Each structure stands twice: as C-alpha cells, then as structure tokens.
C-alpha cells in the first residue's frame, strides 16, 4: 500500500505559563492509503495531539508531517485551512453540529467553501446523508436528533467533500453501546466499501477492534501495533 501519512521524528511541546510540557517525543509513523488506524493510549499519552498534527490543525515543534506527499507542517495558516477543507473530514466526540442549522445545512457547511453550485451541493449533501442512513432527517435540527443520529450527521459532514483522510477523536465516546456499534459499523463501511482512510483515537478496545491497525502511545512515545491488535481480538 502507498503511504498516505508520513510522520517523521515529530516532537510537540506545549507551553503552559512558563513551563514546557512535552507531549510527543520523536514519533515516526506511516499510515497507508485506505487504512483504518486506531490510536490508543492513556490520557496524556499524546494521541489527540498526534491526530491534530495529521489533521493539520496543529504544528509540530520539531519534525515533519507529510500527507499525500505534501509537507503540511510547512504550510501557511491560510493554505492549511484550504487544505483541510478539501482533504480532511472531522468527527468529534460531542458531534459538534451547529445547533441553529438543520442536518442538511450542517452537512452543507464544508461545501460552502467549494465552487459547487447550489444544485450540486444539494446532490452531495443528499448522497452523504443517505450513506449514513439519514435521508429522512434532513430537516431535523440537532436538538431533534438522538446522539447516534447526531454523530451520523457529523460523519456525513466529514465525508461530504470526499476527503483524503477522515480523523475521528473518540467518535463513540458519548454514545450508548448500540449507537456506538452502529457508528463503528458505519466507519468500517466507509473504510471497506468506500476505501476511506480513517484515523481514530479511542479508549475503547471494542472500537479499536474495528480498525485494521492499532498504534499504542504512551508518554509521547509510540508502541507498535500488530501485537496489540492481536491482544485485543483475543480478549474479545
């Protein structure tokens, strides 16, 4: 498989008042195109920071981040925003839909940054909502949807631009078991049937089990992978 994401010796240090807080310490990772990667680790291990770097919403203190052959860590803020609009789909733990917009309008938000006309945008939104099984909830506002449905809308928003990569931070963290199961089915479907590359942060071994690979981080250092996956599968 081609490597879609290349992280080379990345360090990340946050400044908190006058203190330096190292979060990532020389992490190198490759994620092949079409992979479904789960990032696991205890709180403070740096998994969300790593996800932020891959998604282009944060910059490494040292090291390089390549996505699809481009060094995004060297992009300007504006270029990076444009790059995210076309290459990254975000799924958040708390869904983070805009409460004053209905499902259709929420999913349309990333498309407003493209050159698509109104009719084309409508087609894309309807397709994305049908993929997540919410064609009949287009006009519902977030408050009128269940948690699972909100997360589906969030997934539709993430895939509507047909991004290169989908990043998800604890996508099932706020859901009941049944809804979580359905969301993981959906992510798996996006990966297997639509060949979407997905990188997911999770604490939940059941969620990680759905991934193709699992990377384990601890204290900002990476612990590989295949054995961890094996352990999880054995455990369940």
């Amino acid at each position, binding site marked *: 498989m081609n490597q879609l994401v290349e992280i080379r010796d990345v360090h990340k240090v946050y400044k908190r008042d006058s203190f330096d807080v190292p979060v990532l310490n020389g992490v190198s990772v490759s994620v092949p195109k079409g992979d479904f990667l789960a990032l696991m680790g205890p709180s403070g291990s740096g998994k969300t920071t790593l996800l932020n770097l891959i998604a282009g*919403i944060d910059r490494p203190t040292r090291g390089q981040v390549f996505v699809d052959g481009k060094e995004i860590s060297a992009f300007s803020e504006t270029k990076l*925003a444009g790059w*995210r609009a*076309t290459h990254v789909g975000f799924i958040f733990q*708390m869904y983070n839909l805009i409460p004053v*917009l209905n499902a259709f*309008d929420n999913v349309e938000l990333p498309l*407003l940054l493209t050159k698509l006309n109104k009719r084309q945008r409508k087609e894309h939104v309807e397709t994305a909502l049908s993929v997540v099984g919410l064609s009949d909830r287009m006009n519902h506002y977030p408050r009128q949807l269940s948690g699972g449905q909100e997360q589906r809308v969030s997934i539709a928003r993430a895939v509507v631009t047909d991004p290169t990569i989908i990043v998800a931070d604890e996508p099932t963290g706020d859901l009941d078991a049944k809804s979580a199961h359905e969301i993981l089915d959906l992510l798996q479907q996006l990966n297997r049937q639509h060949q979407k590359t997905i990188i997911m942060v999770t604490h939940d071994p059941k969620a990680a089990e759905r991934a193709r690979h699992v990377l384990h981080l601890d204290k900002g250092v990476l612990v590989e992978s295949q054995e961890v996956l094996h352990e999880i599968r054995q455990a369940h």
Partner: protein
Amino acid sequence: MKFVKLIRRNLFRNKLRTILTLILMAAIFFFVSTLLSILENFETAANSGEGQNRLGVQSAISLANPLPLSHEAKIATIPGIVDIAKLQWVGAYYKEPKNFFANFAVDHEKMQTVWDDYSLPKDQLEAFKADRRGTIVGEELAKRYGWKIGDRIVLIGQIFPFNPELTVRGIAHHKFDNSSLFFHFDYFHEATKEMTGGMAGTYWVRVKDPKDMSRISQQIDDMFRNSEYPTETFTEKEFQQQFMAMIGNIKLLFTVVSVCAIFMVILLAAITMSMAARERVTEVAVLKAIGYTGGMILAIMLIEFVTLGFIGGLLGTLGAKLVYRFVNMTEVTQGFLVNFGVDAKTALTCLIAAIIVGFLAGGLPALRSARLSVVDGLRKVW
C-alpha cells in the same frame, strides 16, 4: 451569499437576547434621531429667512431696546428700499401663561409688501386691514386653540400693561412659521404710548434688489451711528440665527448628548456581542477545523453584528419617522417645533451611525474569534 443562512440563523440564535438588544438599539436611535431632528429643525428655522430680500433693524445696544418712530421716515429715504414696517414683540399670552406663542404688533398696511411670504385669502387680508382690532393668526395656532374667522380673543400682556382684545380676521399659511399672531401696531401704540414714549421694537425693510442688501444695511447703520439710538441691521437669516443663539448653545448640548447615547449603546452592544461570540467558541473552532479561514470567520461575525446594529438603527429611526408623522409636535411643544419630522438626511446619519456601532461593538469579539487557535477552541470539544 452562501453564508446568509448561517448569519441569519446565528443572528436569531438567542431570540430573547437579540430582541432585547434590538429594542435597546432602537430606543437609543429613536432618541438620537429625535435630537438630531430638533437640531435640524432649529437649523431650518435659523435659515428660514434666507432668500428673503428683508433686513431687520434693531437697536445696536440690544434687541430689548426699542427704536424711535422717527427712524422709519429716515430709513425710507434710502434708495433701493421697497417698503419699511414696524414690528413690535408684544409677549402676551392667551388665557393662561402656559398658552404662550409669538405675537407681534405690525404695520397692518405693510403686511402685503414687507411680509408677503405669509399667504392668506385677499378678503381676509382686507378685513384685517379694515378692523383696527383685527388679527391674523398662523394656521397651526388657529388649529391649536380652535380659532375661526370672526372669533374674539383677548391676550394678556406681560411686558406691557395692555390686554389686546382682538377679532380673528385672517388665518395665514407660512413655510415655517404657522404659530405667530399679528395685530395692528396703531392699536398697540395707542394703548402703550405713555409707557413706551412712542417707540418700536424693530423695523423691517423690504429691499428691491438682493444685491443691494449689504449696501443698504451699511447705510442704515451709518445714518444712526452718532445718534442717541444707533442701529444694527441684519439680514433675516442673521436675525433668526441671533435669535436662536439666545436660547444657548443647544446644538453643542444636543450633539454631546447624542454622542454619549451612541457611546452607551456601543458599550452595551459590545457586551451582548461578546457574550454571543463567547458561547460560540467551540463552533468557531469546528468551522476553522473544517477549512474556514480566520478572515471568513471575521467577515461572517462582523456581518452578523453589523446587521444587528443596522436593524436596531433602522427600527429606531423609522419608528421616530413614523411617530412624528402622526404626532403633531407643533401642538405638543406649543409651537416650539414647527414642521417637525425626521428627514432623509437625519435618517441616513442615524443608519450610518448604527452600522458604525455594529462595527465598533462587534469588531473585538469577531476579531478574537477569527484569531482563535483551532486546538484551543477544540480542547473544549475533543
């Protein structure tokens, strides 16, 4: 245009807060447009004499000092003068002191030539001239007290010990002044000559050619410079402005109050807009994460805040315009404000001010949102 829906929905996200903010802004701009309209009204009144070929002659000492009747014939000899008339401020009221309005004793024969800008039917003018106790009243004044032609009215003197007993003979219309009352100078003179010694408050001179105004004005003042009663001659516009200046520097006062009101609305709106921006921190972070740039966020939020300011300003200004269209302010203010209303210039000034309020009040919260770090914003989310 693509973002209109997002802006519109955010604008009414918290309906109660938006409505209260709009009410606040509308109230302030109602107030400001009223103050500015009063200033504009004063300005119009001060300029009402512009374009009239009329000169006012008063005592060089002060307007309160009268001039001898003998001045009239001397002034009339100056070439270029069409006519000259006496005008005496009487300062009486009707029934009660609160019913106060401008009332003058005039040379009744000169109404046509010197004050031809007051229009009334010819038969009424003739009836006025023929009746020594006849009076001409402005149409607004007649409406205020329900006076009709033929009504007998008695004014009560304050400055002079004389209560003019008058019969309404004419109701006049004027472009600006519809709240004044005129009666015969002869009648006034007869009743007060022992007290005044035969004097007139002012003289008004109708000039044939406006180009001669300056020359004639100079000649009149030169004529009496070394006399016991020196004069000061003004154009009508200068005379009105001098009169307006007597009520103090209202313009400055009103301007200061307007600026304070606008400053207050900026502060209050800034608090509201900061709250609105603050509760959207995570949403802004999400928008930035999915590709919206800081500039876009700034533009979207500023448009929202400026729209809020504009709507508030529009409601207040239009509200004032409507209210003053239906409420007779001349009646309410006892003739102090004539032809009062919010004109297009004042409305436009208020709307521009409302847009500026939106910019100033919303600028900082919008800028803060635009500069928000995605990670910091999402830290509350991830």
